């Protein structure tokens, strides 16, 4: 895993290969790895392709919006994550399923709903240093 300090106050998790938070203020997105031989998309990065062993793999931006496959509110969790916290599996159109924390209230949660990727604090170490990584949230109605 590649956790690198971004500033003294924050860690960013997996940014180069997994997650992009554009500096120009554009919306964050996840990175997929599309095998040019068998057509499968992987998240996280896998080279060679675990399916066909081709090394001809290109990086693609994954769709920002997916469907919530399932969720739970965790009351007894890991050290470093304030409870309760909400977790879920999100299915993206590129045929990948992503596990993440959800920046959502339990009452908002519904299986099958659209959720979009966002950046947020996923854990805080014993010195108070935050890890910022991908999360999902409800797609605002407009």
């Amino acid at each position, binding site marked *: 895993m590649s956790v690198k300090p971004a500033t003294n106050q924050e860690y960013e998790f997996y940014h180069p290969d997994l997650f992009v938070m554009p500096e120009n203020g554009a919306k964050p997105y996840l990175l997929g790895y599309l095998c040019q031989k068998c057509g499968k998309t992987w998240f996280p990065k896998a080279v060679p392709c675990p399916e066909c062993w081709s090394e001809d793999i290109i990086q693609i931006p994954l769709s920002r919006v997916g469907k919530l496959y399932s969720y739970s509110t*965790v009351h007894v969790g890991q050290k470093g994550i304030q409870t309760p916290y909400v*977790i879920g*599996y999100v299915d993206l159109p590129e045929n990948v399923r992503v596990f993440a*924390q959800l920046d959502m209230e*339990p009452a908002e949660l519904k*299986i099958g709903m659209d959720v979009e990727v966002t950046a947020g604090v996923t854990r805080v170490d014993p010195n108070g240093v935050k890890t910022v990584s991908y999360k999902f949230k409800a797609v605002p109605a407009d």
Partner: protein
Amino acid sequence: MRKVYIVGAGMTPFGKFPDRPYYNLGKQAALEAIKDAAIDHRQIQAGFVGNVMAGMVPGQKVFKELGMTGMQIVNVENACSSGATAVNLGYWAVASGQYDAVMAVGTENLTGNRSGGTALAPDPDDIEGVQGAVMPGIYAMRARRYMEEYGITPEDLALVAVKNHKHASLNPYAQFRNLVTVEEVLASRMIAEPFTLLQCCPVADGAAAVVLCSEEKMRELGAKGVQINASILVSGKYKTEPGDMTVPEISERASRLAYSMAGLGPEDINLVECHDAFTIAEILYYEVLGFCGRGEGVGLLRSGAVELGGKVVFSPRGGLMCMGHPLGATGVAQIVEAVWQLRGEAGARQVQGAKVAMTHVTGGGVSGMDNAACGVHILTV
């Protein structure tokens, strides 16, 4: 391949024993299994030892004070399936003709290893682990999805805990022997919605052991063994694409391989010790192990068919739910229970006329896999 029999079985009670290191628990279980087999310990030619948390060479520490040194000792770590893996290796060592008599031991002291107030989590190097995944949360998502697809309720889930407590109340080896009601299960504190505390298997320490031997050796001992008709161990398949979390593929696959190896089917099985780490798990296993169709698990549970006195008794010892789950020990402990049941020695929790038993463990959190490893055994008398 030669037939393989279990001629000795032993275990410690399961509970919280912070003062008893794993090697002390393992030694007791091994001693009892050897006494039960009435075999001279010097005839045991190899030992296979399942353990998760202890670190290097736990088996040597189990066997050294029993004077069982010099023989081949193999230490195996395969998460929740470590004990089943030890039995599987012992099975093949005898079946292949390499040895005539071996032991498999599973032993674990968790209370000395786990920090309180946290849930069992995947490795911190795992992408889901680092994002906050914990085992209760993963199974809770299976439950939530199943509830959505089949319209079952929290009360339905709680019935698994009620049944397994009923069974455990008859088992002196169980950690929790109290009866519980649906209301009590649902009122216990929330762990990962929809699971309350009493829907999650508790931490435990304990050990279990079996002596395996060839048919010839069994005759020489004058013993009447329980035959191992199937011993299957598989790993999870890695995929990052969406799949149906209510159909744990690894367990379905392992059970089909076991049925095929044994030449038996679900209709032949009298009792199952399955990996009921969470209430939903047992319901899913009724289905994927082949005892009912998809979405029919709660119906089967409510019919009484999986309770003592029913057609196929699930978790007669009280399951992981009431025994607790000392990771490396569980797979062997399930097999010890199966041996006692098949010999008709299970006391008040005896499954009447039991002739065929199945044991099933699965576990280990690796992102992209149902579980890391699954072990299934079928035993007969």
